[in-house]
């Protein structure tokens, strides 16, 4: 019996494409053919439809990708990861990102605890290109998980302590890594469980707050609109928590208040509105629900 994938597609072009995806996935299990298959598949992962279920449910593929991951652990400390090895494992991670993104495989991926094998990569500190790329690609997998708002994903990440790892990258990573790490923290904060978790103790709040503040200071010298946007969104979300909002009265960087970034946000009205609302919340010392803001302002103005 032929598979629906191969049989149900009349277009010869598509059939050939799928046949080659099938062959490449098969090649992943052969150590001799794996490196090329990783490269090829990760290049074509956008073209192959439903690559993620194929990767997950085919025999041994995930096991083979896990071997790729653990096989470079010894190169992490002392840092000896070569560009070629980094590229190879990043191709494997790109395939896992595919699995993390797909609605049919995301929970299976979490359930097998596979994101945890990436955490040692996020714990590295070497600033060389192979390591920077490794961290960025690993964050890409986590980013793909949080992109879809799923509280189960957030719980998993919180329980496995992703926050300190993200904070580390936000402190010392490249602008790209910082952006993805901040994006992950933002998505975690946007979940109610995530906001509660981060605001549960003063220590946690200040750990996040001080890293955000440091990034703001860096941005004054090297502006990045996309990074700034995620930082502001993080602050705004923190201000939704009463205690955090009060704390921000003292620790929100002045540069966010004094128009330092006006130029940077000129073409981004959405982020400008977030910043306005943030400043408003902090000035009031309490979060104001979006719908309420106008009414409350009207009231204050005596209307």
């Amino acid at each position, binding site marked *: 019996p032929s598979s629906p994938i191969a049989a149900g597609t009349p277009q010869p072009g598509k059939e050939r494409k799928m046949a080659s995806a099938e062959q490449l996935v098969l090649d992943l299990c052969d150590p001799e053919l794996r*490196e090329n298959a990783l490269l090829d598949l990760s290049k074509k992962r956008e073209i192959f439809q439903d690559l993620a279920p194929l990767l997950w449910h085919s025999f041994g593929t995930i096991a083979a990708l896990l071997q790729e991951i653990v096989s470079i652990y010894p190169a992490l400390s002392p840092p000896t990861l070569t560009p070629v090895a980094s590229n190879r494992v990043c191709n494997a991670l790109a395939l896992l990102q595919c699995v993390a993104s797909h609605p049919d495989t995301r929970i299976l991926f979490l359930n097998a605890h596979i994101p*945890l094998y990436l955490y040692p990569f996020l714990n590295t500190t070497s600033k060389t290109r192979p390591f920077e790329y490794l961290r960025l690609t690993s964050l890409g997998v986590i980013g793909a998980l949080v992109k879809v708002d799923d509280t189960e994903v957030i719980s998993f990440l919180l*329980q496995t302590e992703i926050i300190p790892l993200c904070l580390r990258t936000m402190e010392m990573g490249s602008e790209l890594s910082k952006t993805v790490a901040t994006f992950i923290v933002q998505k975690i904060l946007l979940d109610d469980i995530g906001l509660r978790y981060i605001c549960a103790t003063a220590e946690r709040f200040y750990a996040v707050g001080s890293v955000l503040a440091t990034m703001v200071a860096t941005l004054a010298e090297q502006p990045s609109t996309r990074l700034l946007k995620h930082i502001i969104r993080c602050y705004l979300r923190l201000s939704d928590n009463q205690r955090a909002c009060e704390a921000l009265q003292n620790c929100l960087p002045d540069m966010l208040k004094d128009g330092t970034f006006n130029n940077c946000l000129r073409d981004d009205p959405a982020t400008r509105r977030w910043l306005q609302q943030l400043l408003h919340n902090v000035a009031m010392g309490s979060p104001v629900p979006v719908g309420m803001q106008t009414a409350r302002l009207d009231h204050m103005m005596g209307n």
Partner: protein
Amino acid sequence: EEVNNTSYASGHPSLANQYTAPVHLPSSTIVDDDKIGTLMIPERVSSGQGLTQVASSPSPFTLSQLQPLIGNYDSYINVNPKLTSMGLQLQFQRIIQMSLDKAIREIVSPVIQRSVTIASRTTKEMVLKDLSMESDDGVILRSAHMMVGALAGSLAHVTCKEPLRVSLSSHLRVVLQALNVVTDIDQIVQNITTDNLDLGCAVIENVATAKAVELIDGEIAPAFASLRKHREATGSAYYDAGTYAQGPFARIPEALRPKPGHLSVAQMQVYKDFVRTWQNQSSQSTNVMRAGLPGIAGDSAGSSLPRVYGSNAGQANNLYSSAQVAPGFSTMGQQLDTLPEESDRSSVHLLSVPSNQVGTSDAMVQHGAEVSSIMSSFSV
């Protein structure tokens, strides 16, 4: 009927960071008989249920439980010739041994708990996914052992390195300061730590592997028992090709599915590769430790190392020979009634395979293109 196969709580203790609130991964997976036949994938329970799991037996990760697995590694301690030339060979041997011992005891429990818990969960899910069609229980168990041993060992090694470095240095410093025998304490502490860190990591790695192999049978047995029961109840053969008509395999081309009945040689090789990859990746010190362990492990009665690292007719350290592993399968034996005694011939050669370094081709290092593709998916 629900089968809860959790036998221990799965905390993930963090090592020295500010997020030290008790956190736990959901450790229980409920295998639902009604669903497993079609999905062949265990249902995930909500984290809430996982958190309320109460360990029914004492944690297998306490120091006293792990102590017998640590074994005696004294003969592998590395005393720098410089120190030897100072005429302090014996003193240093003793100081290093004491400090390393303290350091290992300090971190071994959380590291092993985390590594073994993660590796067990991953292995269970992979084996259930890949080997649900396998009719030979021995193959299932050996595959699970190879995978869980390598994963737990790798995770433990990479996790313990920094905490062990910090702990070893501080213990060495305290002893050397108290003894007041050397002047350049910082340099000597650093040298000794560098010389012996790999040994400490290898010891912890070995404990993780042994513990993971010891526990994995109990982890996977209930799921497989339930799978088998379901098939018997519905009258379908253990490896019914018809199962492919439904469930996730329906979407998978035949060549990529697990072969019903028995895995093909190529398929089996994927799981065996866990051991090979792991051997190749290890530091020299780790390999020395592995080679040395069967002998020294025999000294400590009750250690499970001989079982894990059983030597077999000239094989220095045949990790997973079925003859050695089988006696430990009592849990599984009860669950599955019978276990085939047949030994996996090919596994005997497992560790004698010449290290097969996967050729590093001059594949284009195309970081730039990749980065932009990663970033494109995060534009919000």
